[in-house]
């Protein structure tokens, strides 16, 4: 078997054969190499041997807790992990994200949605490694980290220190779902872990300053009961 080094390698850990099948179909059309694993055990072996660029993990596997898988994987790898889960399982999603997963998809999800997310995370990965991140632009927002300047449509924007820290943290994790807990820890410090309403309030302030339509924001979106996602 010849491995095309330009093609991203993706591991799908999922016990339902049919779901594996369509995920593989969708990703292969998108020029990825897909390896399947039916169990967590198998998944870890595949992850350790295939040099994957991304892992897609179903949280409801019969042979164990997907969160343990994420922790195990995070010990030695920072590759993106996208978890699949059912609706009404918000706590599972939060646990998985807190453990180190980057994103989640709620079943049922479309192939286009999946492919879009996979692409976004692969792109983020290559960006992280290559570019100088001191200046970031998205929409009509321009951020210069070195100068600590945020501009909207060319006009300087006043941000409070917390708002600035919040923005910095969001921007440095594009396309990832960040839980309330993760944000609190990064922006307020470990002593405020339970005060999720602080995040909501300040996120509201930040949005008002950055977004054109706060009820349908383009860059900072809410994931109900889970957290937020920044999309450049």
């Amino acid at each position: 078997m010849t491995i095309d080094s330009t093609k991203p390698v993706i591991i799908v850990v999922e016990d339902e054969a049919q779901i594996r099948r369509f995920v593989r179909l969708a990703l292969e059309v998108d020029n990825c190499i897909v390896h399947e694993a039916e169990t967590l055990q198998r998944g870890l072996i595949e992850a350790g041997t295939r040099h994957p660029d991304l892992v897609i993990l179903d949280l409801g596997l019969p042979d164990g807790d997907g969160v343990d898988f994420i922790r195990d994987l995070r010990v030695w790898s920072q590759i993106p992990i996208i978890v699949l889960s059912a609706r009404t399982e918000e706590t599972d999603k939060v646990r998985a994200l807190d453990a180190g997963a980057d994103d989640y998809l709620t079943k049922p999800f479309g192939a286009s949605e999946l492919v879009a997310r996979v692409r976004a995370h692969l792109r983020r990965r290559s960006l992280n490694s290559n570019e100088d991140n001191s200046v970031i632009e998205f929409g009509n927002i321009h951020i210069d980290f070195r100068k600590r300047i945020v501009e909207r449509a060319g006009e300087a924007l006043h941000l409070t220190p917390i708002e600035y820290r919040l923005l910095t943290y969001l921007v440095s994790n594009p396309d990832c779902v960040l839980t309330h807990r993760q944000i609190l820890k990064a922006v307020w410090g470990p002593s405020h872990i339970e005060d999720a309403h602080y995040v909501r309030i300040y996120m509201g302030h930040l949005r008002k300053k950055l977004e054109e339509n706060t009820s349908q924001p383009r860059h900072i979106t809410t994931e109900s009961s889970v957290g937020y996602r920044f999309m450049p």
Partner: protein
Amino acid sequence: MADIKDQRPNPDELLEKVQRENEKAQRGKLKLFFGASAGVGKTYGMLAAARQLRAQGVDVVVGVVETHGRKETQAMTEGLEILPLKKISYRGRILKEFDLDGALARKPELIMVDELAHSNVAGSRHPKRWQDVEELLAAGIDVCSTVNVQHLETLNDVVSGITGINVWETIPDRIFESADEVVLVDLPPDELLQRLKEGKVYLPQQAERAIQNFFRKGNLIALRELALRRTADRVDVEMQQYRREKAVTSVWKARESILVCIGSGVGGDRIVRSAARLAGLLAVPWHVIYIETPELQGLPDTKRDKILKTLKMAQDMGAETASLSGNDACETAVDYARQHNLSIVMAGRDHPRPWSPLRRSFADKIGVLAPELDVIQVSREEGDARESFAISPLQQQIDRMEKGWHGYAMATLACIVATLIAAPLHTVFELSNIVMLFLLTVVFVAIRYGRGPAMLASFLGVAAFDFFYVPPRFSFAIGDMQYLLTFMIMLAVGLITGQLTAGLKHQARIATSREARVRALYEMSRDLSGALIPEQIAEICGRFIESQFGGKASIILSNLEDKLKPPIAATAKPPIIDHGIAQWAFDHEEAAGNGTDTLPGSSVLYLPLKAPMRVRGVFAFEPVNPGQLMTPEQRRLLETFARLISIALERIHYVDISQSFAVTMESERLRNSLLSAISHDLRTPLSVLVGLADSMTLTKPPLTGQQMEIASTMRTEAMRMSALVNNLLDMARLQAGEVKLNRQWCLLEEVVESSLRAVSTSLSHYKVSVRLEENLPLLEIDAVLMERVFCNLLENATKYTPENSKIEIGASSADQEVIVWVEDNGPGLPKGKEEEIFKKFERGQKENATPGVGLGLAICRAIVEAHGGSIHAENRSTGGAKFVFTLPKGNPPAIEPEFDSSEGECV
């Protein structure tokens, strides 16, 4: 007679066996070296085995070995670890004894403990060495030990019968029976005698003569036979057990069991041993009872101890024992036999009584009382008999006393006999001695027949003495006034003795009835502990009332509102209950009615059933005769009884509660697992459908326009199906009360935002606007569920309005709540249906082409109400429908304002 039945392995027995084996597995194993007499080489054999095991690497320790200085045996211990003996000082001497604690601390795999039947020095933990061994076994240590045939409890008297030597050191047969392995160490008598001659057998110096007697060839042959046979019996039992386990053939078993009655005599041990042998042979259970009659109550402590020892011995041998009391030993024994389904009664043979040939023996009496029982009489050794188990003469006399005239006739007869006996003596002895004879007669009569006959005997005695012997003879004239004193003394003796007898009898009767009462209470409480419903308690209660009081009784329970329910009749005829009094007794927690201070005119007594937690009801009792309840003893009994009943009632109350709780838990668990199974099973194929339909559109080469449309329709429909399933499951969860709100302080804005994103595909052809009041407070809501509310309302709007309609989401703050609305400018709601649409499976327009099952609004209402708000629908005055719901504001947490020190810095 024998109830024969197929004995396939009974599951209970098998279970018991498994348990026994489990127990055994944890216990150490006992291996016995069994021999006919001293000197056959048991200790040697044991040590040989120990050496062999040690060579195999087993951790063997010698606990105690009596080598008696024999060189061969001594040599065998070499190389083995020997546990030091413990020194115990006893009466100024230091004695060495096996060190049990040392052995337990050392905890070897296997320990050698010689002479199982050995009695420990006073001051040791256990009086017998076999008890030490039991403790070792219990600690999981394997034990090897030695035992001689004469040391077996059941064979003890056989051996002493053969050899004429009593052996005091015995072990209970069960130790022998439960030994895991028995090795017979056999030596022909001739060889043993040879060894004895060579001085190879140890004999204690003092008892040499007796021992020499013991080692006669005849004895040795008999002992050897006993040992062989006992070992063979054991093998047989093992064989039988094997057969039972493997169910090779059906095994037949007679359902006979044995009742052994023992009395105060020394023969008790003998009877028990015979019974043990018989029970062993028949392999049936056996009971040993001692019946305490009023006469036997006065036994000296030494005899009482003896009886208790006999009972203890019986227990050690595996019998069930009981000490009963009753007026008539025969009746009590027969009752016991019937109660416990025992078909054979064993008792010692009564001593022949030449002076009362008409008296029936114990066995005969049993035969008359219970012809269905087999009676076995066990022979007694000379000297045993007088004190044997017999009907107490006193008791019989007491019985007879009640027959009235009989006593007086006997008194008369006794006086005649005394007079006749005195006739020849009169010439030899002085008159003062003759008087003693008459005095004796009075005492005799008083003891046997009580006060009345004793008085008669005094009168008759004095009269006869006066008439026949006091000069002048053959006349009632009294020559000397001193005979008047004689008469007074005789009368006094008669009266006092009679009084004492009567008192004794009375006490015995009281003791018996008290015992019966305690027994009845005990039996009732035992029955009550098994009762599960109030009717059972009432029935048990009725049985007790009938046996102890007679009369009518009912139990009246209370409901949760502390009102009494209809009574449950306990006796066949329930009393007529006045509910007013019953309720009063219940409310005031005091007895009322007959015999109390409250409404004593009533014929029924109402006792509140006070349990530890609360009063459970009232017990109503109507005695046969109204004065019956006045005695404190009866009242006390009744109160104890009521207490037992109330505790039982409380217990079943809590049993009910725990059961219903268990049922609720179980049904909840079932529902949860059903829901999650359904949701998984329905969602997985839907996910696959959505995914596959979607991936079709991505395939290369691209699909044609028509195929593309098909794929996209498939996807849309599958998504809708998924939404439907979600709604159904949400509804099921909400209805089951299973949904626990994950309430957090959230911004409504965020919920609206994520909802709009979730239904963005459906909304793509509508003009959606959001108009939230500035600075809405944080709301304590479950964001995920609230998102469902918005999604359902928005989807509803898209379903019932034409494309390009306007949909507006708004919110404003009111005094205590936040009002939220979703409105459209579509056709509006059908008139008068504004409330109905929130019902399950209810839709605005019946039979139309709009998809859905009408769950959306019902879910919205359930969620909003769970948040403490309300929801309603109305038609807008400008046309279109408006759904309005409220959410309570609560007390939002304070947010510390940020001190913006960096003002201007980030510009």
